């Protein structure tokens, strides 16, 4: 796909993989970041900021999943379980061990990464579908451990987490969290974008495309699969720790099996194997769920027998239908459509 109307004339690999290819793109990127990090938090209402915050947390976890599923090709149906590990680790460290949130967040992320590595071990022997089932079982096992953790995890009642603070300054409004969450989202998105452009990224793409051929290129397939699992769970851990700090009180109900499926759904809708696509997918589906939250009660009024289960039922139904539609009509996701739109805009008004 052409990056410029007249064609690509890169002379080095670094130029080819650059994020911004032209001065205009740099300006747009800078404007976008200024809008996102400065203008939006100052002018938006708390409700809009809360939507942004949830989207930000979800993007972090979904990007981790995209590195594992989209780039390394290992399907993970247990992302919500890994997020739960991160959230509970953060809550345990701040509540029981009285660590600062700023220490608990990276520690929780690393521990979650190690838990992810544990469930990557079957990938030494099996692949594809079996890995998916292992991660599904991982979700079940993690949830069981959390519900039966006694005082350590608080069981079904849940666990309180200490909000992040700087000295006397406590993060307690949507706006405070916005800077923390969106700041980390931008940082981790950039990190992921860089990660997949390194040797590691090229190696996991090779593993995805053909894991029988990859060893002949000198790639240690098992090692890279385990590393991809670590990174995926690490991102989930960061998202979980942020959730713990954001909600201040976490229970197992924040991490249903359904969420793990939604995370794969973000990749399908956005485009698996594209960091920017993940963001499209999360934003699209989260905005859709906001619309359903408004539309559900309306449907309940029009058709009275639907009223009791309108929002949750309609949400599940819409999500399922959207995924099926994307799988059938655009399996490469919104990102691919975006590329097509961009390149036809560049060459406009010519149709070639």
């Amino acid at each position, binding site marked *: 796909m052409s990056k410029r109307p007249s064609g690509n004339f890169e002379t080095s690999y670094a130029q080819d993989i650059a994020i911004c290819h032209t001065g205009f793109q740099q300006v747009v990127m800078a404007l976008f970041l200024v809008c996102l990090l400065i203008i939006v938090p100052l002018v938006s209402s708390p409700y809009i900021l809360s939507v942004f915050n949830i989207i930000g947390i979800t993007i972090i976890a979904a990007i981790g999943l995209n590195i594992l599923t989209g780039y390394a090709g290992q399907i993970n149906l247990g992302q919500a379980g890994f997020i739960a590990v991160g959230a509970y680790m953060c809550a345990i460290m701040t509540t029981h061990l009285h660590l600062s949130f700023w220490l608990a967040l990276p520690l929780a992320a690393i521990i979650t990464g190690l838990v992810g590595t544990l469930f990557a071990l079957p990938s030494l022997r099996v692949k594809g579908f079996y890995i998916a089932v292992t991660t599904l079982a991982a979700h079940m096992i993690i949830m069981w451990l959390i519900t039966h953790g006694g005082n350590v995890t608080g069981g079904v009642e849940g666990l309180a987490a200490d909000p992040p603070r700087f000295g006397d300054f406590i993060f307690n409004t949507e706006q405070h969290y916005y800077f923390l969450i969106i700041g980390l989202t931008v940082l981790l998105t950039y990190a992921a974008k860089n990660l997949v452009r390194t040797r590691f990224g090229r190696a996991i793409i090779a593993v995805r495309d053909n894991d029988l051929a990859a060893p002949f290129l000198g790639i240690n397939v098992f090692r890279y699969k385990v590393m991809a699992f670590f990174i995926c769970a690490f991102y989930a851990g960061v998202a979980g720790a942020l959730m713990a700090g954001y909600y201040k009180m976490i229970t197992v109900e924040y991490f249903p099996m359904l969420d793990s499926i939604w995370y794969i759904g973000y990749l399908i809708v956005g485009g698996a194997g594209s960091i920017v696509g993940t963001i499209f997918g999360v934003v699209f589906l989260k905005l859709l769920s906001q619309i359903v939250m408004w539309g559900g009660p309306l449907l309940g009024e029009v058709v009275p027998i639907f009223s009791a289960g309108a929002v949750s039922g309609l949400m*599940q139904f819409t999500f399922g239908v959207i995924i*099926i539609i994307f799988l059938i009509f655009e399996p490469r996701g919104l990102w691919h459509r975006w590329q097509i739109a961009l390149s036809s805009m560049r060459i406009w008004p010519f149709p070639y």
Partner: protein
Amino acid sequence: MILQLAITGLMVGMVYALMALGIVVIYKCSSIFNFSHGAIVAFMCYLAWAFLVQLRLPFWTAALFLLVSAIVLGWIIQVGILRLLIGQPLLASLMVTLALMQVFGGIVTLVWPGPARFYPEIIPTGIFNVAGAVISYESLITLGVCVLAFLAFMYFFQSTKLGLAMRGTAEDHQLARSNGIRVVQMFTLAWIIAIITCSLGGVLIGNMHGVNYEPVSGLAMKALPAVMIGGMESVVGALVGGLLIGIFETIGAGFIDPLVGGGFADVFPYIAMIALIIFKPYGLFGYEKIERV
């Protein structure tokens, strides 16, 4: 105590085996693992309730209606959705059944919200004692129906021409085609058979535990570890895996739960499954796949 656990395990295990059969039939034919099985079981369970209670149909008419809707549903899923996804990568075939699970779950929550419902008494209730173990008529009939269904499907696969065609499809699509088998029609047939097992299982589970989405679909999804343990391509494996899971689970509930606190029965099958995946990836009766570059 042990006899009681063994008998309960056997009954629960037969239901799991029937559920596992539904998954295996589809996987054998079209290499699609049907994650929506549990949701479809719950959907059929509610549909049966709607026929029996909401429409007040007599039992056999309701059964006929359920059979017809199973056939129509199987046909719609195969022709309307899955046929369009043939040849797509693993992620697509996996995600489409997960999406179907959402669709069916959503429909059930939309149309039949609220607390559990109950079937009118189709099976006489009552219990009797055998050597200290308590057995209810319900579970005996459940067991009987499952065994009969299993025998019927075994007969179908082993001794009828259509069953042979389905087994041929499972072996190799191209060879089956060159022998004049319509492969895509076999996929449809596999889905129809699977949904018929879904309806049977849905009615049986709904009769035991009440017509309620979470428990019914959850119970039916126990077939997942059953299938993995038995081997994904094997009907015998489905039977053995289902029974093993049923026995594991009741033993877990009887002996391990008092030690670690309740609910261990729910994860025990999954732990057993992961252990088995590490040591014997293709299950007890599955085909070992050999891949070449």
